[in-house]
């Protein structure tokens, strides 16, 4: 049954890739069929229990096909189905052939190609095929990101992604080559007894960490997510970066990891969580803000994973399991909320044509659905009850608290992690109050926001679906536990106990009750206001004669207080001319927050390499005499090498 569904999904996606450029309708049908089949298969594995494994005589590249869908990969496969399907529907309304005759067909092709390659990555249990699918996945995401070829910005972002992800891929080259060499086969599977493999986990961490956007390897992420078409951003942020997480989960479960890796992951995760969201708070580009928020959430996930590895290493401590479950659930939650938010951003971009928050405002009147869904997504992603973001962060918190109470040396990892998680949560709240308010509330700041319109049904439906999924996970978190239990069991045999160690059911009940009370209270208050009478009047303007939209608080000034605390790493670039004298000339305030790691760390290194390269190129000066000198020099060096040693 599982196998059939998977086969169906692969076939549908392949067919969708084939017909995508020509037939939009058929493509949508095939993609939805494929996505839902994948989802179904994943649910079968997660709730039916039995992992699915399939070996075939058919060999590809000299290796026999070996596919497996166990609980761990099924967790991700399910998310793939949801996000992939939703994004496809959204694309039909958002990136239509009419508006983008050139890129829309290509977009459909690469969309299915990417879904296909990602699902093969999740399925393949053979190193060679894993690598093939992994690189195809990277290449198809590149073509999706740079879908608007004619825009230099999109091209640059795509290339940065391609470069970064290739660096990661080469680490994986080495990683799988070593594994194959040590195991004598490309076949993958649990290799927990082989302590000598442990040091190579670092290669995997580097390779997958880049794709996951783990701080400080996230350099490609903001620009890629910001410049890509929004449905692509949703897929990238909702699913693609989780493929990196999958790699780490997969191999941290299958092979022995060095003792230091857990600490490193918790540390990187904590830094990523706080700094990522600090960067987000300082952004003015709506999609960049969301992208940095992904860095934060990946940080949270890695805190959980690293903690789980530490727990497993220290006598299978039960709190380790809590952390792992929290991390995995957070993968789901973040994937859903973040793709929802990116789709909302897409509908804003579609309506106004700008991502700059400082040019928007007051959109709630024109696009109430988008506004409401964005607000919901914001509450969820800030980890506030009664929505799903809280549930997973709650699990992570519990794990960390227990780890500290354990009073072991691991407290030194868990204590900072817990505090970092709290800080990141509060900063996320600030960022999303800012984003939602500046974009949707108040008055329109420029005419760009004036002609806005609500998105069509094709774009609204997937947003509603994702919102519904968030709500489902929030109100019935206990329903997710069997899946989590199986996943943790598949990751670590000692953690397979199906009973919930924490009162998820109670939490679900509380969330539901809370939601109902909120509804009731809102209703009651609204009724009371109606009874007393409601009068509309201009905002109280403290005596100003003419309130102006530009008097509103801007996003920059809103986030200023908190982001100043991080100016040591944000290094914001401000150009400011204050009004001076009785008749001041027009004043200027320009703010830009660079991607510090990229511009202060990576770029200088790259510049150095380029200097070296241009120096070397001067040796190809075209004077043949010197070419012969090179030849003679070569012989001399070879002779020395041959005679010495």
């Amino acid at each position, binding site marked *: 049954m599982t196998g059939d569904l998977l086969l169906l999904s692969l076939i549908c996606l392949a067919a969708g890739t084939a017909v995508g450029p020509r037939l939009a309708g058929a493509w949508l049908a095939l993609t939805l069929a494929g996505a839902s089949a994948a989802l179904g298969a994943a649910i079968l594995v997660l709730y039916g229990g039995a992992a699915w494994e399939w070996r075939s005589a058919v060999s*590809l*590249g*000299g290796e026999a096909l070996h596919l497996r869908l166990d609980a761990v990969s099924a967790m991700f496969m399910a998310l793939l189905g949801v996000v992939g399907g939703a994004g496809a529907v959204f694309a039909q309304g958002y990136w239509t052939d009419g508006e983008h005759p050139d890129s829309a067909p290509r977009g459909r092709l690469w969309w299915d190609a990417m879904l296909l390659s990602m699902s093969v990555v999740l399925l393949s249990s053979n190193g*060679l095929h894993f*690598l*093939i699918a992994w*690189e*195809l996945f990277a*290449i198809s995401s590149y073509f999706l990101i*740079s879908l608007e*070829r*004619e825009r*230099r910005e999109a*091209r640059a972002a795509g*290339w940065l992604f*391609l*470069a970064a992800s*290739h*660096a990661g891929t*080469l680490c994986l*080259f*080495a990683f*799988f*080559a*070593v594994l*194959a*060499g040590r195991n004598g086969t490309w076949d993958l599977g649990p290799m927990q007894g082989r302590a000598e493999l442990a040091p190579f986990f670092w290669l995997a961490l580097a390779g997958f960490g880049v794709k996951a956007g783990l701080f400080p390897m996230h350099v490609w992420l903001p620009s890629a997510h910001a410049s890509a078409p929004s449905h692509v951003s949703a897929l990238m942020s909702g699913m693609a970066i989780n493929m990196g997480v999958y790699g780490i989960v997969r191999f941290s479960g299958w092979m022995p990891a060095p003792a230091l890796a857990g600490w490193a992951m918790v540390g990187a995760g904590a830094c990523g969580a706080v700094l990522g969201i600090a960067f987000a708070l300082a952004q003015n580009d709506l999609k960049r803000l969301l992208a940095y928020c992904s860095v934060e959430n990946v940080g949270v996930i890695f805190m959980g994973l690293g903690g789980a590895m530490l727990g497993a290493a220290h006598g299978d401590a039960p709190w380790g399991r809590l952390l792992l479950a929290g991390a995995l659930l957070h993968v789901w939650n973040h994937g859903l909320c973040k793709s929802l938010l990116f789709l909302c951003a897409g509908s804003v971009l579609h309506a106004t044509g700008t991502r700059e928050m400082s040019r928007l405002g007051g959109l709630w009147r024109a696009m109430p659905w988008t506004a409401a869904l964005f607000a919901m997504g914001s509450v969820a992603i800030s980890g506030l009850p009664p929505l799903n973001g809280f549930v997973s962060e709650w699990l992570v918190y519990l794990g960390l608290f227990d780890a500290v109470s354990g009073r072991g040396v691991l407290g030194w990892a868990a204590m900072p992690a817990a505090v970092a998680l709290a800080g990141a949560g509060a900063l996320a709240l600030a960022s999303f109050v800012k984003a939602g308010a500046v974009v949707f509330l108040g008055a329109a700041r420029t005419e760009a926001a004036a002609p806005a319109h609500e998105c069509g049904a094709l774009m609204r439906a997937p947003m509603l679906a994702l919102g519904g999924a968030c709500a489902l996970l929030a109100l019935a978190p206990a329903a997710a536990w069997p899946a989590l239990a199986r996943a943790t069991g598949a990751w670590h045999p000692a953690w397979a106990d199906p009973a919930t160690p924490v009162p998820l059911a109670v939490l679900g009940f509380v969330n539901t009750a809370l939601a109902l009370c909120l509804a009731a209270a809102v209703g009651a208050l609204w009724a009371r206001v109606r009874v007393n009478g409601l009068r509309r009047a201009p905002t109280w303007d403290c005596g100003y004669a003419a309130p102006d939209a530009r008097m509103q608080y801007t996003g920059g000034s809103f986030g200023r207080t908190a982001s100043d605390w991080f100016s040591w790493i944000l290094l914001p670039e401000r150009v400011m001319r204050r009004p001076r004298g009785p008749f001041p000339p027009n004043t200027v305030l320009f703010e830009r927050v660079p991607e510090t790691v990229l511009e202060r760390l990576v770029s200088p290194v790259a510049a150095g*390499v*380029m200097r*070296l*390269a*241009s120096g*070397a*190129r001067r040796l*190809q000066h*075209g004077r*043949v005499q010197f*070419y*012969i000198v*090179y*030849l003679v*020099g*070569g*012989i001399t*060096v*070879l*002779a020395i*090498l*041959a*005679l010495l*040693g």
Partner: protein
Amino acid sequence: MREDLLIILPFAGAILAWFWPTERTRPLLLPAVGLAHTALAFWLLAAPPAVAPGAWLGFDALSRALLPAVSLLFLVCAAYSVPYLRMRTERPNRVFVSLLLAILGLMSTAHQARHLGVLWIATEALTFAAVPLIHFNATARAFEATWKYLLIGGTGIALSLLGSFCLGYASLHGGGTGDLTFAALAAQGASLSGPWVTIAWVLLLAGYGTKMGLAPMHTWKPDVYGEASGVVGAILAGGVTTVAFTALLRVRTVVDAAGGSAMAARTLLAIGLFSMFVAALFLLGTRDFKRMLAYSSVEHMGILVIATALGRIGVWAALFHVWNNSVTKGSLFLSAGNIRRAAGARTADEVSGMFAVTPRSAAIFVAGMFAVTACPPFGPFFSELLVVRAAFAGGNWAAAAIFLGCLFLAFLGMTRLVFAVVDGRPRASAKQGPRQFRETAGLIVPPLVLLALSLWLGLATPSVLRDSWTAAANQVFPGP
């Protein structure tokens, strides 16, 4: 007999082409002979003949493992050159066609040569036969390129002759009869005079390395590949370099037999890594997408040499990589030729947005670029992965690290340049090309076929090829 036909056939064709009456139909001889040659080569691949031990020429395991690749590449290039020469009616094609065929004959000879002297004569004839093809365009730049090719290539050839003499003298000094067949030299083994073998190895490595285009002897390559037409570039990069590589493999068996195995491996590894590094640096900066192909070729020659240094698995991977490199480079050269012809320029500063002008060629170019930078599922990915694996298995951590680092830099350089060429807005000059270029099937199918071959080689390597490589690897590394 059949193996001699491999040599006779092309020469006959060359002579025929020379005396062929009409310009229009002469090019058809190329695919005709190429087809026959390829058929023959694959027949021999399937049913290899016995080789007389003392023979000067013979279709042994090594030529069986490599010659079909060259023949196949030649066939496709021949098919491409028919419409190409149709476009170039302004130039007489007698010399072009007959020399192309002669080159095929010489390549077959060199691949089958089991004698030091014959091998050298064939290689050096090959060197000079390519000259008129290189300045086929008869531009000043072409002549300059030819001049450099001659001077540097000639010096290299001279060095390999000196090396051959040294090897011969080594045998003489060791009491040999002066029989210069590789079999005899290898049989003489340890009694070869050590110092002379070392000197010979250095000279031969430098000499044939010049033909392969290993840094720092690669300086002629960008000029020649940049100026020569796509067909010639493809054959030089995919065929002639293979000849030089075969020569190195044959020599290495002798050196190993003489006990210089460690020394040979050391020098090979060093020069290979250096070539990769130099190529990567140049790829980062170059703006000319035909010279880019030359540097990429330097890089892949480096990969071959490194693999050869890594023992039997390495050699197996190297043979595999020769096939992959030939077909992939071929498709790149041909599609690059199309783009260059349509745009009328060769640097990213003058060319852009070719996806809009020549969509098919551009697509093939991009795909080939991914293929040649070892992105799956194309062939080079598999062979290079094998090389990495062999390096790790041999414990050459540093070598593997440098290898991967150079791959990364090369990838950066090539992607940046290629996407600069194909993406963006097309220049006005390219919109209606200087010489109305049209993507006819004849110009698109051959590179496409080569690309498909690269894909097929990677995903479903035929067992007969695997066996031939295993046999060849065993011939290079006899014993357990």
